[in-house]
């Protein structure tokens, strides 16, 4: 259990340590932050190997009483999906922190405090198995991110950060009403044991919530998640926030924060409000498909590289949402691996954009041209990230998009080929806008004198990029290492869905395993 607790709390402990360091001693602050986040990554690796990927249930489950009178417990645990996303968090965070060394120059102490606090809250979101605890972590993200964009952001940071804050809180306050209503209904009316926010207890009785109420609850939760994803047409905060945030902020925002929304959709909407999810799947899939095309088209006309990458997120996350609401094993598996992929490839793209911004202090595509000749290594890395984002076979992006598209095609719930066909167009558009941008920035004539003396990548920048490339190729060539982790928990979810919709169990072997592990959990609770 200790590695799990440490993975969650080490960043928090670190942030408190940072508070007590001398604010002028930048070196110690920087390196201790980096050290803490690398240590967290190493500890989470232990967790990764301890995890039993055959087990479809929640593992490492910890259940501590926290607030007795509203039965909000400190309940944390992980299933396959959580495991992958926690790994993504602990992996991206040190890279983002390393990139801060170049891009954050003032108020460093506050910055590193905020970023560790952010890592703590993000990890918490992915492991919370209590709805109240989940909500706390979900809201806790808001404060550090608000300051990171607002203090260390670009020219329009004020507008961007307020917009980010307001959008997020609109969603989450309605989720709060949903949380309380659900906890009251499940606790008092179904279980009869009084108000509770225990996720596992509620999940086991969630199918008894009447459909009419499920609809309301579905939207109370979903709107909050859709804003975070962001799903068209709730995406307008994203380009501003991404563009104005400092490089590490964008990396974390794109790499991890957006995944909280899609994670929430699977964890809460699909698992708890299954009937409502089935009912609204086509509607939401349409929005996802529109988002894919819209994001791609808008990205194509951007003049700012960072904004282009930001809009590409809208498009890519559309695939994830489509995969989720295809409600097939393949689609959801694809969505989960696509979350990781997007974190790696878009995170890398933002890092690369940040690197050239540090050298030239502009992100206008028109300012560049012929960079490939001046910075060949940089151009190579950029090409890898771009091809991963486009979905070139052999790199990670292809795997995820392919799986989600197959999911959309074969989905018995969507039951319509149109989703897959239109979404596949998005893949082509992605190739168009990214390759076009690449061509304008890296090829052509190098006639801007300001670009003539750009230096190629430093050692530190190599250190940031190489691990990302490693995983981009790894997932592209042999995705099973990672998809295995979420396979069984996804199958279990599909069993729940299909049982309610078609009254059949597509993966009976998972069903047989459930009873054993439930016993394990109850044993742990008794301890």
């Amino acid at each position, binding site marked *: 259990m200790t590695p799990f607790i440490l993975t969650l709390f080490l960043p928090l402990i670190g942030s408190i340590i940072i508070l007590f360091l001398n604010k002028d001693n930048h070196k110690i602050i920087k390196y201790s932050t980096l050290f803490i986040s690398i240590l967290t990554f190493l500890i989470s690796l232990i967790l990764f190997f301890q995890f039993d990927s055959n087990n479809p249930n929640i593992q490492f489950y910890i259940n501590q009483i*926290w*607030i*007795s*009178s*509203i039965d909000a417990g400190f309940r944390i645990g992980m299933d396959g999906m959580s495991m992958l996303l926690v790994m993504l968090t602990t992996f991206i965070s040190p890279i983002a922190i390393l990139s801060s060394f170049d891009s954050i120059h003032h108020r460093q102490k506050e910055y590193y405090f905020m970023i560790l606090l952010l890592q703590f809250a993000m990890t918490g979101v992915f492991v919370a198995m209590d709805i*109240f605890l989940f*909500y*706390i972590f979900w*809201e*806790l993200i*808001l*404060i550090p991110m608000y*300051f990171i964009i*607002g*203090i260390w952001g670009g020219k329009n*940071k*004020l507008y961007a*950060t*307020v917009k980010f*804050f*307001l959008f997020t*809180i*609109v969603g989450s*306050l*309605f989720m*709060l*009403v949903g949380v*309380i*209503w659900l*906890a*009251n209904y499940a606790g*008092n009316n179904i279980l009869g044991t009084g*108000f509770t926010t225990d996720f596992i207890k509620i999940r086991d009785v969630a199918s008894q919530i009447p459909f009419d109420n499920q609809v309301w609850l579905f939207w109370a939760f979903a709107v909050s998640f859709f804003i975070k994803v962001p799903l068209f047409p709730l995406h307008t905060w994203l380009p501003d926030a991404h563009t104005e945030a400092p490089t590490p902020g964008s990396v974390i925002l794109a790499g991890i924060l957006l995944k909280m929304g899609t994670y929430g959709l699977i964890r809460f909407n699909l698992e708890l409000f299954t009937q409502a999810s089935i009912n609204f799947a086509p509607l939401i899939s349409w929005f996802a498909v529109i988002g894919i095309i819209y994001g791609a088209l808008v990205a194509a006309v951007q003049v700012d590289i960072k904004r282009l990458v930001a809009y590409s997120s809208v498009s890519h996350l559309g695939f994830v949402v489509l995969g989720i609401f295809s409600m097939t094993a393949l689609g959801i598996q694809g969505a989960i691996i696509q979350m990781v992929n997007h974190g790696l490839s878009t995170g890398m793209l933002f890092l690369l954009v940040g690197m050239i911004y540090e050298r030239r202090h502009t992100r206008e595509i028109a300012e560049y041209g012929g960079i490939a000749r001046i910075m060949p290594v940089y151009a190579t890395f950029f090409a890898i990230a771009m091809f991963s984002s486009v979905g070139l076979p052999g790199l990670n992006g292809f795997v995820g998009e392919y799986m989600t598209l197959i999911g959309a095609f074969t989905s018995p719930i969507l039951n319509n080929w149109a989703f897959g066909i239109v979404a596949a167009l998005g893949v082509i558009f992605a190739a168009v806008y990214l390759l076009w941008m690449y061509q304008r920035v890296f090829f052509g004539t190098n006639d801007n004198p300001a670009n003539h003396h750009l230096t190629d990548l430093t050692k530190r920048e190599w250190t940031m990029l190489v691990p990302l490339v490693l995983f981009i190729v790894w997932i592209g060539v042999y995705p099973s290492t990672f998809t295995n982790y979420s396979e069984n928990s996804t199958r279990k979810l599909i069993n729940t869905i299909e049982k309610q919709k078609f009254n059949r169990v597509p993966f009976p072997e998972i069903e047989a395993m459930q009873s054993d592990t439930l016993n394990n959990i109850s044993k742990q609770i008794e301890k």
Partner: protein
Amino acid sequence: MDIQLITYIFSTYMLPILVASTFSVLVPLLDVWSKKNKQIVFYATLFNFLIVIASSTNLLINYSNIKEFYLYLGGYTSLFDILFSVAGIMTLFATKQYLEKENYNLKEFYSLLNFAFLGMMIINHSANLLLLFLGIELMSISFFVLSGFIRTKMSAIEASLKYFLLGAFATGFLVYGMALIYGATGSIEYTIIARKLATSQFDATFLAIGFALMLVGLAFKSSVFPFHNWAPDVYTGAPTVVTSFMSTAGKAASFVAFILITKHILLPNDKIEELATTSWGMITEQSGFIIAILSSATMLIGNITALVQKNVKRMLAYSSVAHAGYILMGVVSNNVDGWAGISYYSAAYILMQIGAFVVVSLIEKQDDNRLNLEDYNGLSKSNPFLAAAMGIFMFSLVGLPPFGGFIGKYYLFLSAIESGYLWLTIVAVIASLISVYFYIGLIINMYFREQSNPIEKIHLGMANISIIIAIVGILVLGILPDVLLPTATSVFTNF
């Protein structure tokens, strides 16, 4: 009753209120006796609050509540006594520096503070309408004087006069309502009134009118819509330290009165369905609905008006109106969870609102200078500690975790949903959304904006203690709610 028992009750249950009464008489005398020692009234007042906290904590932990000498003792009264004293201590530490800055360091201030505090305690302990009235008047009259304490300042005089005239009018409603309720039921004691109502020995018309009139009076005292108009003017004009005490502890005391009245005069929640057709049932249902409407209107209007304020004090004053609306949700629920929610939220509210007012009182200069929102620009650079503290108070007022305001709000929402007021919760959520904008606006000014002539490094002095109490309290209430929440629930379970 034999003498031993009386001595026992006096030395345990009665101790807090006896101490408070003694000191409120003693402090003015000390002021006269010791002309040389200028500090003594300050320390006497502090001592008073500390003893009340100590004895009430003892009562809360070791004794259950009783009713004796027309007073409720122990139980929930101890909980609120502690809250009032904490508010008193926090105000007290900020007071000295503030009065010196305004050149009004007169000792009468402390006497009045003690009287107001005693008034709150009497409201809190009262077991009949007459004592309730006495408490409300003692508290209000002290506040009338306190808000005009800086008597050479026009805005303060205006505040005081406005508060006095309107307050006297509201008192008229209150006392008329009490008289009618006495007429309708034949008693002024809460428990006897409740018993008469349960055995239907009452006059429904007079009860309804009496209850409505009392509602008006109490709504005025706690600045609930549509009787909230005095609050922004008074809260802005009064000395900042007075505002901090009056808008928190004073409000909490008014809500205790609300709880006492609604609890004893309205039907208990679990019996509404079986008695819905009786006149009592109808009065209850309609009053519940009316209070819910008042609650939602209060929070919406408070927050919407706060949006356009340029003056920090006025913004906080409107936000204080809005918070009265949130707390009223607990009155609407009229069950244990609602009352527990009120006490929890009051605790969090006292800490965050006084904290915010203390920061305001430190930053403002003589003659209402430096009270505008723009004056806070760049505060995080010139005074990082004050800015961080104000940031925490603002986030807590918004209701963001992991701060105390969030848990309080959560519990109030929970109680409203449990008693079937889902729509009220949704209104409260919308109101909170509106409030985000102006609370965050202050943080934007402090952290993201710069100022050409920054504020000098402000000497905190003793006010530092108030701010630290507030920050620690808010964090404890937000992260470890089990410190207070089970107590808050249990004291109301058998009252």
